[in-house]
């Protein structure tokens, strides 16, 4: 075998092995687990939508009688509503998780003494400094009694009541 060919072959091998080994050298923060996505409610919604569209179109073309159309459509609409609810449920769960993460990351503290401030408290229990209320999501100042952040729309009502 030609020496030049061996040299080129070796360099192909080295480049390839390096490329294949890249993922093992990266120190990514994410753990080993593969990301998981929720697609099923979305799939369901699309399927129902396309069924609805087909049914409407078939009705328009006179393939379905009026009685059948009414009953089939009512059933499909109920399915569609259900699929939207499912999708909402997934969104709600996602939102709760996000909120939990956010509040953990930015647990508010007293400006003066650094005491951790629980939600709903107006004055620091340790030094008495008035607590400036700020949005836990974007940090924007809030007025007393706000239910949502005026800047980012963050929902301030949590299980504990209105966040400070």
């Amino acid at each position, binding site marked *: 075998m030609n020496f030049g060919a061996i040299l080129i072959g070796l360099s192909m091998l080295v480049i390839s092995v390096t490329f294949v080994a890249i*993922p093992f050298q990266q120190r990514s923060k994410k753990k080993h687990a593969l990301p998981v996505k929720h697609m099923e409610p979305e799939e369901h919604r699309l399927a129902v939508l396309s069924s609805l569209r087909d049914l409407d179109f078939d009705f328009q073309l*006179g393939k379905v009688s009026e009685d059948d159309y*009414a009953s089939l459509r009512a059933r499909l609409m109920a399915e569609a509503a259900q699929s*939207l609810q499912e999708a909402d449920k997934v969104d709600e769960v996602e939102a709760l998780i996000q909120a939990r993460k956010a509040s953990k990351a930015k647990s508010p503290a007293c400006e003066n003494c650094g005491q951790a401030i629980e939600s709903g408290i107006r004055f620091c229990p340790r030094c008495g400094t008035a607590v400036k209320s700020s949005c836990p999501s974007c940090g924007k100042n809030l007025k007393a009694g706000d239910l949502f952040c005026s800047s980012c729309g963050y929902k301030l009502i949590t299980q504990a009541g209105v966040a400070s």
Partner: protein
Amino acid sequence: MIADIGLIALTIAFLFSVYATVASAYGGWRNRSKWVESARNASLLVFPLLTVSVLAIVYSLITLDFSLAYVYDVSSQAMSPFLRVTALWGGQDGSVLFWAWLMAGFVVIVLLRKWERDRELMPYVIATSMLTTAFFVGLVLFITNPFQHLWYQYGAPDAIKAVFQPANTTLYIPQDGGGLNPLLRHFGMIGHPPTTYIGFTGFIIPFAYAIAALITGKSRGDEWIRTTRRWTLVAWIFLSIGLILGGRWAYDVLGWGGFWGWDPIENAMLMPWLTGTAFLHSVMMTEKRGMMKKWNMVLIILTYSLSLFGTFITRTGVISSVHAFSKSALGPAFFTFIGLTFIGSIYLLYWRWDTLETEHSLESFVSRETVFVLQNMLFLAITFAVFWGTVFPLISELVTGTKITVGPPYFKSVTGPLFFVELLLMGIAPLFAWRKQTVKNLGKAIWQPFAGSLVVSIGWGYLHRMHPMSIIGLWLVAFVVFCILAEFWKGVKARTSSKGENPIQALIHLIGRNHRRYGGYFIHLGVILIALGFIGDSYFKQETQGTVTAGERLVIGNYQMRFDGLRGYPGSDGREIVEANLTLFKDGKEVRSLQPRRDYFVVQEQPVTVPGVYSTAGKDVYIMLLDWEVSDIDQQATFKIYINSLINWVWIGGFVMIFGTIIAAWSSPKQLETTYVLKPGMSTSLPAVQEV
């Protein structure tokens, strides 16, 4: 040196495809994303590495590096550079490499496009597709290596083929090669293998997703079907084009005046096409109604296994002779792999059987669902009949020692009626609505196409006094065509009245808003036009044969052919040509001069008959020069003439099918969302859904 680089690239590609299989399976199993990502990188490398290999072979073919046995086998000095490139798939060794290369290409496209979206399925998609790629690259490397040299051993009658130098030999470099098989030097044969291979290998994607869905338990949803629908369509249309090009090649080159002979190799391509077509339809049932999930799995496993089986039959020559099977290690290796793939997939399916329960049951027997189920059953029945007829000679030879072949009569009589019903269903299925359909409505939709088709077929039959079966065949074609046209008509009418568009706008919008539905109708139209070609071939074919001296005429139907003389001259690619000069008359009027030829390839000692064809939409006059005798006094020649009615509709139908597939593959769920919204807050009463 170039060939050596190709060989090294091939070896590295093999190592990485094996690594990718193992690493992705391990990463998926243990949930280690680094392993999966590494496997992905390895899979991405296989394609460029194989490309280096393919380019090395192509370069050797063009530059006529006869130190390679493969180049010596399929290339020669007399061949044009273009033909030398096509020699890549003109022989066994090159074509297996080409196969592996295409498959690796499909895998790269999937990995680049779908990596982020289908992360859960990806480990097993990589494992499944790379396992197959590894198998094929392994075949190339260890059994059908195109980088083998010829070695000469003193005293031995033949040169030895080996990659590395055996003891006591010297490298043998011939002066010129054997050249590509003359029968393969035709545009049909140049396009046929690549399109067929793209079709065969393309089914790996839906198959790999199906297997991944089974392993991960995601088979319950239909995400894998949505992801792979377009891949399946692409594979399917390439297989269709491959079938049609193969038919065109047979028609132009093989010289028996037909385009489909139920040959084992043709059947080997037809079978995955049949199950693939069934799969394309049954996935709609899952998408729309959550039904037939198990059935989809069965169909994609069958389709992919039959694709492998098709390659197996073509590449090992096992059907023409059982002995070809054991001649090289290719046959047993292939057979084992197909067996393992099939059994492994069926086991996975059995394991997940309970998760594939249907979400709905049939609401009414008069519904599109019922037609779909029937249609699927028929496709499977036809596949089984073709399979049985194809492997029967093999089984009879194994069991009794004598080979009993079943010819075209078996296939025609068994599959003919099944195809008839299948085509009929194709016509009426679009008239049914999903879920439920009243018989009254159905009757209303059917009677007009039915009446129209009766008038056309009976009128035509009466005018031309044709075979009764042909009238039934023509009725079927007319009926299906009318049904499809009626669908377009109704759609256009609905739009013109509800949206006030003019008919052309309405037609464009109609197709634009419903790509899949109307693309499908175009494909159906193409299929029925091809059926028209088959009817012409079965019932309207005329033939005659005769020997004439120069100046004499042969008569067939209302055509006359006058023989004007012969001439011989050397042609390109190392062939000697004898050409007859003919004048064709229709009803006594001269229409065309024709030159049927006999090309003799000197090196290969092979004659090829090139017919002279006068082609119109209705019929082809197809004339072959069979034999000739030249004396001092006169010239005599023997001709065979066919009148092939309606044959051109096969090719026209093929183009319509391609057009329809392009339309059908266009749509996407996103578009659906933008054109159709569910308005929140509305009650479930009518009409809450509006088109915007």
